[in-house]
């Protein structure tokens, strides 16, 4: 437990001493604002709610979260510090969890910094508190799942770019799997409705949309947490078996 905290502290420290953290935060906030107010048609709809704010996160995160996750293990491999880390008295799960939690915490900070957008909306109108709370919770869980996936691809390689691209593709897949192009394809192949439902149910989008609308469903939370746990477990296994 103490080791996890030590790792988290180191990770956050090195994030914030490098420009990565600040560049990320600025880009994230600018893009969020831009999507919410410009592309989301906030002013056109003449309705002060946060639908157009949360709506973009699954897409925005596809690009931004792997930028945080890609370095996690690839960088350790490249610098050779993996050898240092795994010859210190620390278990693989501790290391994996520590790194993940640090990244997740950072993404949480980024989400927290979007508060002004919410305040603006509250000032302009009178949105329900429910969708805001579940929307944020959903976004945070979603970010965690993406982060775990990109940490997983990062564990396979010493190249951050490779890690970034593969995790972007994987996250995109997680969104698209419930969308018509994929489901239509399954339908054309004559897949039974069970498979179609499964396909839709596996989609990040499906579960996120519920939370974004203010629906609190335990299944959504379980979905995100299991996806995260699965990716973390794979990461641990890869790191245990592929080191040289």
């Amino acid at each position: 437990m103490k080791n996890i905290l030590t790792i988290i502290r180191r990770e956050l420290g090195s994030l914030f001493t490098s420009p990565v953290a600040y560049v990320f935060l600025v880009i994230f906030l600018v893009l969020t604002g831009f999507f919410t107010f410009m592309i989301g048609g906030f002013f056109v709809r003449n309705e002060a709610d946060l639908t157009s704010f949360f709506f973009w996160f699954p897409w925005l995160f596809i690009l931004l979260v792997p930028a945080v996750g890609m370095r996690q293990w690839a960088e350790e491999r490249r610098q050779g510090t993996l050898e240092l880390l795994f010859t210190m008295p620390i278990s693989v799960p501790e290391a994996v969890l520590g790194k993940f939690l640090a990244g997740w915490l950072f993404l949480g900070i980024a989400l927290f910094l979007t508060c002004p957008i919410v305040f603006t909306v509250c000032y302009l109108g009178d949105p329900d508190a429910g969708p805001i709370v579940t929307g944020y919770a959903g976004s945070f869980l979603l970010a965690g799942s993406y982060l775990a996936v990109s940490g997983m691809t990062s564990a396979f390689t010493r190249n951050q770019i490779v890690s970034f691209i593969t995790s972007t593709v994987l996250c995109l897949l997680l969104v698209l799997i419930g969308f018509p192009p994929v489901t239509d394809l399954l339908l054309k192949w004559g897949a039974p409705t069970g498979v179609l439902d499964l396909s839709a149910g596996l989609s990040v989008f499906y579960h996120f949309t519920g939370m974004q609308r203010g629906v609190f469903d335990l299944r959504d939370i379980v979905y995100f947490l299991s996806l995260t746990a699965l990716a973390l477990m794979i990461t641990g296994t890869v790191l245990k078996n592929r080191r040289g």
Partner: protein
Amino acid sequence: MIEATSVKKYFGDRPVVAGISFSVARGEVLGFLGPNGAGKSTTMRMITGFLPLSEGSISIGGCDIEENPVEAKRLFGYLPENAPAYQDMSVGGFLQFSAAIRGLSGRAGKAAVERAAGLCHLEGVMRQPIDTLSKGYRHRLCFAQAILHDPPVLILDEPTDGLDPNQKHEMRELIREMGRDKAIIVSTHILEEVEAICTRVIIIDRGTLVFNGTPRELLARAPHGDRVLVILRGIDGEEAVAALEKLPQIRRAEILGEEEGRLTLALQPTGKGEDFAWNIKKMLDERRWEFCELHTESGRLDEVFRDLTAPDGADRKEGVA
């Protein structure tokens, strides 16, 4: 403290370490020698639990590195090859992190960091980012990280690599000093280092152990360990060789150089060669041959090394201790 039993490592189908056994006790400094690619670093990575073993077992202080890795890892400090460190941290921050992972926090952590930084002369660079350090300093930093928690076992992969002569000297002193009450493994390509700091030597060649003994025993294998060199003045080479080879104590006389009237000869004794140099001196005196130098050659480690790890397997000396 360290016990390795028939350790094997395959990368794919290729055996890189092919069954090595040895042990290191407290108070011993074991030198790892071997040509490039022999498998020294690979063996060290298995001892430290970074690479899984293909076969065999390794235990440190009674803890099996594969079954009880965290306990075993508490017992040693490790300096990997190339001295990796987190480039984006400061020297002090990195040492503090290492101390915290070793369970040293607060005052104990601070004291440990100060002690290690002092021993490795890092006080002046504590706030410097690691990616701006020179190679030697980075090496010292990684060494400081290894001795931070004063572990009973040290595993050092080329600890003097990249250090200036003064630092090399100091590092050797430090290792020898710590070797009194620790079990230490050091790999190196510098053979003098072996004589200077090691109490025992292992030579690995293509993944197999070709020597395990003291530096003295290693020297005793030197091919020219007992020959005598003389430099004679004003004597013709052919004539001298012919005369000397007639003597029963001398098995062979060989001309090594002849210039400006100075003739350098190497004399090989028959048998053990006791008092060989003394007998030769007497004989030269009897003949009134003038010599300006006469000495018994001490064996040279590089020759033994070359012999034991000959690239052509056929002419490699048999016999593994």
